[in-house]
């Protein structure tokens, strides 16, 4: 069943099947929306946060989602600035995933403030010394850039493309995309970094605090680097998942491998830097504030040294080595496993830099602070996932996202 709304030459499931799929995901979305309105109406008492956990699940979700959405800026960087033309085959999808990630992050941020109606104060009364201000500005600007990058993809829908102005707009946007992409890379570099800075500048929190360069703590660079390393992994992972769901190949394996190789080297260099940072922190920074490494990993029911090993070794070095080896990349299972591990690794890192920072006690007579999210927090955190699935489904159905789809699926 082909309607003009669906791109030419590709096969899509029936409208009925698609509607059922949307309804199922939509139900989850509605649950999240309900929780979202509860939080807006009743306030943050609907969450499991408290005065020790000013930052919790949502901030983690923000950080994680932005790190994973980093695929968009890094692929854009590789495609438009370095000139890796083959990546044009995933750049559309990377942009869509980035768009979803960033819009979700903004939504969660809007939820996570006590006075949402005053949210714009962060721009209006900006404190330029605050990492969060930097995050807010770069995040919003970059979201604008992502929207600009997303528009031409939308405009390629056969129906829209028939409108001359939109047709030209799409064309002209494509023409200058490199400029936007470059601006996006610049903005991304800063907000990814500022997100790292958010925790790293907390000199009252020895678990988070890092020395650094000028005003930027090392976490600033580590966050940017890790987002660049893992963002493409997430793009590949989602593409792979989409292939599994749609039961067809959408992007050529070489592209996956190319991204894997780049990610692998990025990840490896990131891990070297991260390990060096961790060592310096454990041996110099933390002890200067009276803390031994194990003080941060003992006397509590959750945070043991396992979490450090999981982040650095299992989800850090291991995937890095798989991805840099040709054998590892050429085995699809290994490739995808490594990428999933890398994604988990960056999520652990963001968790640790938010939640464990809050959990660790500072005064010797205090205990570890424990936190349990409420269903409202969980639902609003799942909400972006549902929203993302819906947007991806729509995009995949109505837009020519994957240039190689026709070629890879002949006979449709």
């Amino acid at each position, binding site marked *: 069943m082909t309607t003009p709304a669906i791109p030419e030459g590709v096969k899509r499931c029936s409208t009925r099947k698609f509607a059922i799929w949307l309804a199922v995901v939509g139900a989850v979305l509605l649950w999240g929306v309900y929780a979202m309105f509860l939080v807006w109406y009743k306030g943050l008492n609907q969450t499991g946060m408290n005065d020790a956990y000013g930052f919790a699940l949502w901030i983690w979700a923000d950080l994680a989602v932005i790190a994973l959405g980093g695929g968009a800026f890094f692929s854009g960087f590789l495609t438009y600035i370095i000139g890796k033309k083959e990546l044009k085959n995933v750049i559309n999808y990377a942009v869509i995933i980035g768009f979803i990630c960033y819009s979700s992050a903004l939504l969660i941020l809007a939820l996570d403030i006590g*006075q949402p*109606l*005053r949210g*714009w*104060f962060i721009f209006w009364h900006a404190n330029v010394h605050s990492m969060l201000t930097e995050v807010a500005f770069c995040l919003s600007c970059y979201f604008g850039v992502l929207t600009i990058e997303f528009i031409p993809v939308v405009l390629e829908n056969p129906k829209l493309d028939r*409108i001359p*102005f939109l047709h030209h707009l799409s064309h002209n946007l494509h023409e200058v995309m490199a400029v936007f992409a470059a601006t996006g890379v610049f903005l991304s570099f800063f907000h990814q970094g500022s997100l790292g800075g958010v925790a790293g500048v907390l000199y009252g929190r020895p678990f988070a605090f890092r020395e650094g360069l000028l005003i930027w703590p090392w976490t600033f660079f580590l966050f940017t680097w890790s987002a660049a390393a893992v963002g493409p992994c997430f793009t590949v992972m989602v593409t792979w998942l989409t292939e599994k769901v749609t039961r067809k190949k959408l992007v050529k394996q070489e592209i996956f491998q190319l991204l894997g190789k780049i990610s692998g080297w990025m990840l490896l260099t990131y891990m070297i830097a991260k390990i060096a940072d961790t060592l310096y922190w454990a041996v110099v920074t933390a002890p200067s504030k009276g803390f031994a490494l194990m003080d941060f990993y003992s006397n509590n029911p959750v945070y043991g040294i396992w979490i450090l090993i999981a982040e650095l070794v299992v989800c850090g070095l291991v995937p890095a080595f798989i991805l840099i080896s040709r054998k590892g990349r050429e085995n699809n299972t290994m490739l995808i496993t490594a990428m999933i591990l890398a994604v988990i690794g960056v999520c652990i890192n963001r968790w640790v830099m938010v939640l464990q920072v809050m959990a660790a006690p500072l005064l010797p007579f205090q205990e570890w602070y424990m936190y349990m999210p409420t269903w409202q927090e969980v639902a609003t955190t799942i909400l972006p996932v549902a929203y993302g699935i819906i947007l991806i489904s729509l995009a995949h159905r109505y837009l020519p996202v994957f240039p190689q789809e026709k070629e890879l699926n002949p006979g449709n």
Partner: protein
Amino acid sequence: MKIDRRCFLSLVIGGAVGTTLTPVPWKLTDDIAIWTQNWPWTPTPEKGPSVYKKSVCTLCNGGCGINVRTVKGQAKTIAGQADYPVNRGSLCPMGISATQHLYGPSRIQSPMKRTGDRGQGKWEKISWAEAISTVSEKLAELRSRKKPHTVACIAESDRGTVPYLLQRFLTAYGSPNFIRTPSSFDAQEQALYLTQGKHGTIGYDLANAEFILSFGCALMDGWGTPGQMLSASADFKQKNKLVQVEPRLSDTAALASQWVAAKPGTEAALALGLAHVIVRDNLYNKDFVDNYAFGFEAWEDENGTVHQGYKSLLKQYPPKKVAGITGIDKGTIESLARKFSRAKHSVAICGRGSGMVPGGMDEALAVFALNALVGNINQPGGVTAIPEPDYWPEMQRDKTASNGMQQPRVDGAESDRFPNTRYLLNRVPEAINSAKDESPIQALLVAGGNPLYTMADTETAKKAFDKIPFIASFSTYMDETAQYADILLPNHHFLERYEDVPTPAGTPTRVIGLTRPVVETRHDTRHIGDTLINIAGSLGGFIENAFPWGNYEEFLKQTLAGQWDSLEKQGYWVDPEFMPPAWEEAFQTPSGKYEFYPSQRSNPSGKDADALPGFRQVELPGVQEKMPLTLMPYASARIAGGAVANPPFMTKTVDADVIRDGDVFVEINPKTAKEHDFSEGDAAVLKTPAGKARVRIHLFEGLMPGLVAMPVGLGHAAFSDYIAGKGANVNALLTDVTDPGSGLNAGWGSRASLVKA
């Protein structure tokens, strides 16, 4: 079609750009910002100049001078009155947060009568006229049945004009049953009477003492006048003058230069052991003991019988034996005795915890004897008797009243069995519950205190109250006892009324303080003095004649006419003539001397050993095998343990290891925890012979193993949602243990068991 689309697009884009250029979006966002800053449901307090008003806090019997900041006639904040002779500017958290009770939801706002079952909380508003006629009709009816003596009145104090009016009312009406709520001063005042022959308030000159030996007094957590004690604490600390005897590392013990962790209930033995050393080593004040004391040596009565003296009693308490009893090592006892006798002004004080439980007479007498041994009676830094107020006008009463007054008291005080005890509220429940037919109390006026919360074994007390046909409460707040009454005649809040506050117990000078209205009366309440005058008026006859004043204020000004100027101006009056009498004139005992052998002590056996203050272990209720632990209540400055419950601010200050999610934590030593397999935070059921309660466990090294310490003042069931339902009431777990000679409650704790919940 194409043109239309273009038009449409231009319109949309143009419109959007145009709107951004108008002030509309900016104005809207600005309005939103302003609105979130002025949410109508966030109150804006009214501004105005501050007016400071002096008064005296009556939330406990401490009577601290306060300075209330008011703005536009509303009380805002409360601080201690800097020059007030009792507290010298210091104030406890309860006093500071009094405004919360003034404006809070626990106030009784008008007279009410009960419509549902007792304690059910169903009330109907009535007029004052109806309230007064209901009470006076009930009282008139009892009087007409010649049963005026079946009326009883409970009050928190027996000094000052309001307690006096209550007593005067009962006397004119014909009932001897004026009952003051129990406190450790019951025992101390009786000891004062037995040793010095005087009725009065006991004063301790702690400021001038060089050495203070405190037998479990929670000086920092509510003993005596909290403001006064807190104010003196720095002095205790800096001059290293405090030694605290107590099985728990309390706030007072923490402040002391030495913490002597004696087994609970062995304080008297320790006092005797110290006395033993002092006498053995001839360290006592020979002048005082030889010339102004009686019964130190053996003596012969008029019948020629030779009686044992205090000195020979002490022989039974050598340090080694006392060490065995108290768990304190011999060396500590010896050195403590030497320190006590060598310091220039040493004073020993008693009254466990915040002084809510009287304790046994042996203990009070043994501690008093220590002060006498060092001759520190009526000396700077010593013990002094402050005479009771005696400025009361004459009155006449009719025959019914005289007959009523001849009847024995319901509580057994001043009877042959307990001749020296003035009030025994603790014995009232038994007197009612054991009565064969109708309750010996037919009408109860609760004019202070909150017995259904503060009495030991509150369940039994409640059963007794059930049998009283008529209960009227004058309480300002909907407390546990008011909730159990039939009719409520609410008194003004203390920030709305006049009242005099005579010398608080423990204060070494003669003072009167003036509580006065700092805010206008908020509700349809009435001063208890006025209510009494109204009731007397409606009863008529001699009773009416005994209350010739137009209102309470008139009576107050008349009574304190001599002091009124000073009271009005300064808020207090200090007796300029008061001087502790010299030893020659000080004692009004039969011997005219300080009596180490209290010859007036009730002693049915006639044995010297029972008259002299020896050590007799108080048998706590319960079987040790079933209840291997010992529950002991402890006082905390952050939890009001008395009649008036914590205001929300105070509860806010209580730590999460004292109360959490409505559960109270009991402290146990980690050793005890190990033996009973408990760890921090575990839920448990605490059982005693009187009842059980759900608690949680807090491990505390500072508590003697084998004990379970529970805070006093939690577990309220009344007042308001903000106060009720937090933890359990320790009083409900304790049982009255009758002291043989005095009838006072000597029960300092209870056997208990802890089982995992």
